[in-house]
C-alpha cells in the first residue's frame, strides 16, 4: 500500500493540495456560519447530515475520492479522451433542450434520478478546457493563423452559446475566461484590448449622460487627429480608421447598448447591470417586460438592488477586523439571499472583516500564481494550455463572484470556487485541479 501511495504522490504538487484543502475547509466553515443558529445543538445537526454544512462535508469526502481516482489515473487518458468528452459534453447540453429539467427558471439540468441533478454546462468547463488543450497541442498547429484562432475560439464559444440559450448567462460568461489561456498561446493582444475597451465603453454608457459621452468621444477623436496630423497627411488610412472607430464607439453608445438592454436582455438582467453601477433601470422600456404587461402580468418597477445592498451591508459591517466568528448579525438574520451559495463571501466579510477578506483573497491569489507557475514549467503544450485554462476559470469565478458581492459587477449566478455550497460546483473544481495535478506530476512526459 505504501509503495502504491508513494507512486501516486510522486511529483504531485502538495502546495496546491494543501491550498485546496484549506479552501474547502474555509468553505465548510462559512456555510456553517450561515446555517448556525444560536441555541441549537449544532453537533447533533452536523452528525444528522441534514444541514448544508454536513452535506458539503459529504461532498468534500466524495470529491477526495474522485481526486484520488484522478491521481491514480494515467495522464495519457486525458489527452486521449479530450475530444471525445468534449463531444459528449456538447451532446449532453443539446440533450437538455429535450430532456432538460427546469430548476430555478433555467432548463440546464438533467435529472439523474435519486434526487441528483446534473448540469452539463458545468461539466463542459472541464471538457472544453481539455478539448482546447488538445487542439492547441496539435503538432502541426500554427496558432498565429487566423483560421486556427477561429477554430479555438469556436471550441470555447460553442458551449457558451448553448449555455446562453439555456438562460445560464453566468456559466456562458465563464467560457470567456478561456481567452486568457488563448492569449498566453499567442492570440493577438488586440482582441483583449478591444474587449476591455468595449467593456469600458459599455460601463461609461451606463454611468455617463449619453450626450456628454458622445461629446467626449468626439473630442478624443479630434485631439487624436490633431496630434497625428503629420502621419495622417502621409497615410490617409489612419484618418479613416480613427473616424471609423469614433463612429463605432458612438454607435455602440447611442444605439447598440440601449438596444441590447431594452430588447435582448430580460428586464431583471438590465436591472442588475444598472444596479451594479448604482442606477435604476426603468423596466417599462424593456421589450420583454412590455410583452409581459401585454400578457397581463403585473409590471414591477421596484429597483432590484436588494441583494447587492444587503450584501454590501454585510461586508461593510465587518469593518477592519470583523464581528467575529458566528457573530455577524446580517448572516444570522439571513438578510443576504443565497448566502450559502453565491453570496458566501459576505459571511466571511462580516465575520472576519477586511483582514480576513484580504488573507482569504491572498490565498486565492497564491493558488492562481502557483497554477501559472506550474503551467510555465510544463513541457507539453497540452498541459500548459490546460493549466492556464484552469487558472483562467478559477480567476474568472473569483473575480465575478467577489465583485458581484461588493457591488462592482452585476449579479449573475457564479459560485465562489471551492467555497460556495453545492456538490457539482465543488466537484467541477476538484476535477479541474486534480487533472492538472496529475498532468503536472507527469510533466516530464510530452503529451499530445
Amino acid at each position, binding site marked *: 500500500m505504501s509503495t502504491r501511495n508513494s507512486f501516486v504522490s510522486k511529483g504531485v504538487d502538495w502546495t496546491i493540495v494543501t491550498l485546496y484543502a484549506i479552501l474547502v475547509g474555509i468553505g465548510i466553515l462559512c456555510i456553517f456560519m450561515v446555517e448556525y443558529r444560536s441555541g441549537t445543538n449544532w453537533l447533533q445537526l452536523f452528525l444528522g447530515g441534514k444541514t448544508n454544512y454536513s452535506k458539503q462535508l459529504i461532498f468534500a469526502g466524495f470529491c477526495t475520492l474522485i481526486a484520488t481516482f484522478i491521481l491514480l489515473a494515467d495522464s495519457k487518458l486525458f489527452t486521449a479522451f479530450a475530444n471525445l468528452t468534449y463531444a459528449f459534453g456538447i451532446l449532453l447540453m443539446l440533450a437538455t433542450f429535450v430532456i432538460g429539467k427546469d430548476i430555478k427558471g433555467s432548463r440546464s439540468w438533467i435529472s439523474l434520478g435519486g434526487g441528483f441533478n446534473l448540469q452539463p454546462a458545468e461539466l463542459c468547463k472541464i471538457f472544453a478546457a481539455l478539448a482546447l488543450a488538445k487542439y492547441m497541442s496539435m503538432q502541426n498547429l500554427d496558432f498565429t493563423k487566423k483560421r486556427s484562432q477561429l477554430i479555438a475560439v469556436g471550441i470555447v464559444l460553442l458551449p457558451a452559446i448553448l449555455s446562453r440559450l439555456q438562460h445560464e448567462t453566468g456559466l456562458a460568461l465563464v467560457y470567456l475566461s478561456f481567452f486568457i489561456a488563448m492569449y498566453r498561446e499567442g492570440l493577438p493582444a488586440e482582441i483583449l484590448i478591444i474587449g476591455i475597451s468595449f467593456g469600458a465603453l459599455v460601463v461609461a454608457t451606463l454611468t455617463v449622460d449619453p450626450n456628454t459621452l458622445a461629446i467626449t468621444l468626439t473630442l478624443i477623436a479630434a485631439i487624436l487627429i490633431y496630434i497625428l496630423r503629420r502621419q495622417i497627411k502621409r497615410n490617409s488610412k489612419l484618418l479613416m480608421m480613427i473616424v471609423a472607430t469614433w463612429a463605432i464607439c458612438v454607435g455602440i453608445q447611442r444605439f447598440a447598448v440601449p438596444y441590447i438592454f431594452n430588447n435582448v436582455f430580460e428586464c431583471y438582467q438590465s436591472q442588475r447591470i444598472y444596479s451594479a453601477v448604482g442606477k435604476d433601470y426603468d423596466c417599462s422600456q424593456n421589450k420583454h417586460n412590455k410583452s409581459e404587461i401585454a400578457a397581463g402580468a403585473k409590471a414591477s418597477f421596484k429597483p432590484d438592488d436588494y441583494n447587492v445592498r444587503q450584501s454590501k451591508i454585510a461586508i461593510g459591517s465587518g469593518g477592519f477586523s470583523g464581528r467575529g466568528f458566528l457573530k455577524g448579525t446580517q448572516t444570522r438574520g439571513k438578510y443576504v439571499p443565497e448566502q450559502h451559495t453565491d453570496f458566501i463571501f459576505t459571511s466571511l466579510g462580516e465575520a472576519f472583516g477586511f483582514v480576513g477578506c484580504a488573507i482569504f483573497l491572498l490565498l486565492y491569489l497564491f493558488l492562481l500564481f502557483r497554477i501559472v507557475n506550474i503551467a510555465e514549467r510544463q513541457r507539453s*503544450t497540452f498541459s500548459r494550455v490546460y493549466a492556464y485554462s484552469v487558472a483562467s476559470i478559477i480567476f474568472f469565478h473569483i473575480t465575478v463572484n467577489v465583485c458581484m458581492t461588493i457591488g462592482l459587477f452585476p449579479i449573475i449566478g457564479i459560485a465562489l470556487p471551492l467555497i460556495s455550497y453545492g456538490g457539482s460546483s465543488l466537484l467541477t473544481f476538484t476535477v479541474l485541479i486534480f487533472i492538472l495535478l496529475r498532468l503536472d506530476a507527469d510533466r516530464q512526459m510530452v503529451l499530445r
Partner: protein
Amino acid sequence: MSVFNQSRSRVVQIIFLLIFVVILIQLINLQIFSSKYKLAAENNAIYRKIVYPDRGIIFDRKKKAMLENTISYDLVVTPIESKGTDTLSLCTLLNIDTVEYKRRMRDIVFKYTAVKPSVFEGLLSQELYAKLYENMYKFPGFNLTDRSVRTYPFNTGAQVLGYIAEVDTSFLRRHKDDGYEMGDYAGMNGLERTYEKVLMGERGIKRFIRDNRSRIQGAYENGMFDTSAVAGRNLYTSVDVEVQQLAEKLLANKIGSAVAINPKTGGIIAMVSSPNYNPNDLTGSARKKNLGRMLLDTARPMFNRAIKGQYPPGSTFKPLGAVIALDEGVITPNYGYPCYGYYSNCGVVVKCEHKNAGHSGSLRLALANSCNSYFSQVFRMAIDNPEYHNPTLGYLKWKDYMNKFGMGTTLDVDLPSENKASVPDTAVYNKAYGRNRWNSCTILTLGIGQDKMTATPIQLANMMCIIANKGYYYTPHFVDSIEHEQLDDTLYLAKYRKKHSVIHTSDTVFRAVHEGMHDVTVYGTASAIKVPGIEYCAKTGTAQNPHGKNHSLFVCFAPKDDPKIAVAVIVENAGFGATWAGPIGAFIMEKYLNDTIAADRLSEVERISKADLIPSAIKDWYVKKENQRQAKLIIEAEAAKAEMNSESKQNNIDEEDNSEKIPIGTEKNKEQLEMILPDNKNIKPVLPQNKKDSSKKKNTNTTTALLIDETKKWFVKKTKA
C-alpha cells in the same frame, strides 16, 4: 512557441494581480471607510424592544395616591402574519364591519409597515379582553399586549394632574433627543407634563437579533447591551384630595375656579377649574371620543381657569392697593377719606355702596366697608406720589409693586402654560390716550380692581398668601418632594423652596389690613359667612365684566393670627361675591382646617353644589349640540332604511323622484347636513329660535323633517350674518 510567448505569463499574472488590487480597494472602501454599512446592519438586524417602566404615582399631602397604574390591553396585529384570521368573528367581537377592518389594516401597513406589530385596537375593556383572549387561537398574527394606564381612584384633579396620550409627530419633533418613539405615551398636560421626565422613569432596552422577516432570533450579544427599566419616581404633592374633591363639588354646575394655597410653604392645597371632567374619561377605550367632545365643548372643560382664566379682581384687589399705598408711604393706617356715596374728584362718578359718614374713616373701616371712594383716592395718591413728579413714573412704580406681588407676571407654578393675566404697561395707556396725556384720573378704576387689570385665580390666592404672611411668599407649586430626589430635581424644585420677600413694611401696616379684612367677616360684606371655630380674614369682590353678569369673587385666609390657608374663589357671572364665591371659600377653609364640615352645614354644601349658575348661552349651546346629534342619528337611520328599501325595490324609482319624495336619507341630504353641521359651531349660541329648541328638547325624537328645517334655518341665518 512556448518560449515565444513566455513574456505573456507575466502579463497574465499582472492581470490577476490588478483585479485583486481593485477588489481590495473596494473592500477597503466598504469595510474601512464607510460607516454607513455598519449602521445599516444595526438597523437591519438589531431589534430594540423597549421595556416600559411603571410611571410614577402622584400622592397628595396625606400620601393618598391621586392616580394609580393599572394594566390595560391592546390588540396588536402583525399584518404579514395575519393571513388566515377569522376576520368575521374578530369584527363581530370588536363590533366593526369588514370594511373598517380592511381600512385599519391598510392604515397600519401604510403607517408602520406590514412586518411590525402595531396597535389594531387600543385600551380594550375588561369584558372585550376576556372575549378576545378566549378566541385568540382564531386570529393568527394578532396578539394581546399589556400597557400600563392611569386610573384615578378619587376621580379628581383632572386638570391639575393632566393626562397621558400617545405622542404625535409634532411631539416627536420637539423631543427629538428624549428617545420617544411612535406609539409611546407621554404626559400631555398638567403635572404629568411638567414632571414627565421624573414620572416616565427610564425605559429599558432589550436588544434582539432579528432576521430578514423581523422574526426574533435571540438576544443580541447575550443581553450584554440590554438596560433594565427603572420605574418612574413618585411625586409628593401638597394637594389635599378631600379638599380638592369638596372644592370640585362646590363648583359643580358653575363656571369658575378656586385655588387654595398653604401660605407657609406655597404648596397648593386645591386647584379647581369648573367645568371639570372625570380624569378616568381620558384613559379607557372611549378616550378619543371624550377628548374630542371636550375639546369642542364651548365651556372648555380642558381649560384650567385657575392658571389661565383672566378675571378683573374687583374689590378683592383693595387689600393689595392698600398695602402698596402703605408701603409707598402715601397713607398711614389712620388715613381717612370722607366718602358720601360716590367719588367724583375726577369728573366721572364712581359709586360707593355706603353713604354714612365715617364708613371710611380709617383703612380698617374702609376695607371692612369696601369703600370705592377711599380706594380710588388711595390709588390716585399712589400714582400721583410727589416723589415721582409724574403720573407715568408713579404708575411704573405702582406696576412694579404689582409685579412683585405676582400680578401681571407668571408665578411659575409647576403646571404648563400659565397665563400672566394683565397689569397694563404704560405703553397700553400711551397708545390709548397719548403719551403723557393720561393721569391717575384716566385710570382711576384700577384702584378698585377694574379697568384693564386682570388676574388669574392663582395670582389672587398668591396675593392673599403675601398679605397673610405679611410680606413674603413661596412660589405656588404642587410638588413638595420627589421620590429619590436627584440633583436635577433639587435644582428644579429650588425655585419653590425659595422665600420671596416682597416688601419689608412694619408689622403694623399688615395688622391694619388684616384687621380690616377680619372686619369684613365680622360686620362687612362677608359677615354672613362663617367658618366654625375659625377667625378668618377675607375680602369679597363683585367684578364688572364685559361678558354679562358680574363675577362673584372671594379671597380669604385663615386662621387670622396664624394663616394656614389662603383661598381665592371666582364664580363667573354669579353676582355678589358674598353670595356664591364666599361660601365656597369658607367651606374650603373649614374642610382644610377642621378636617371636616360641620354636620349642620352639609346641607348648605349640597345647596351650593346643586345651584346651577351656568350662563344660558352655554346651556343653549349644549341643547343645540344635542339636537344636532339626534338629528344626525335619525338621518343616518333613515338613510340606512332608504338604502335597504331602494335595494329591495331594485331601484325602480327614479332617483330625482326619490330625492323629492324622501327629503332625508339620500346622499345629497347627508352632504348638505354635514356641510351645515360644522358651520353651526361658529354661530353665536344665543339665537332666538333656540328657546323653541330647548322646549322641544324633551321630544327630540318627534320628526326628522322638522329638525332638518331647523338646521336649514340656522344655515340661512349664518349666511345672512
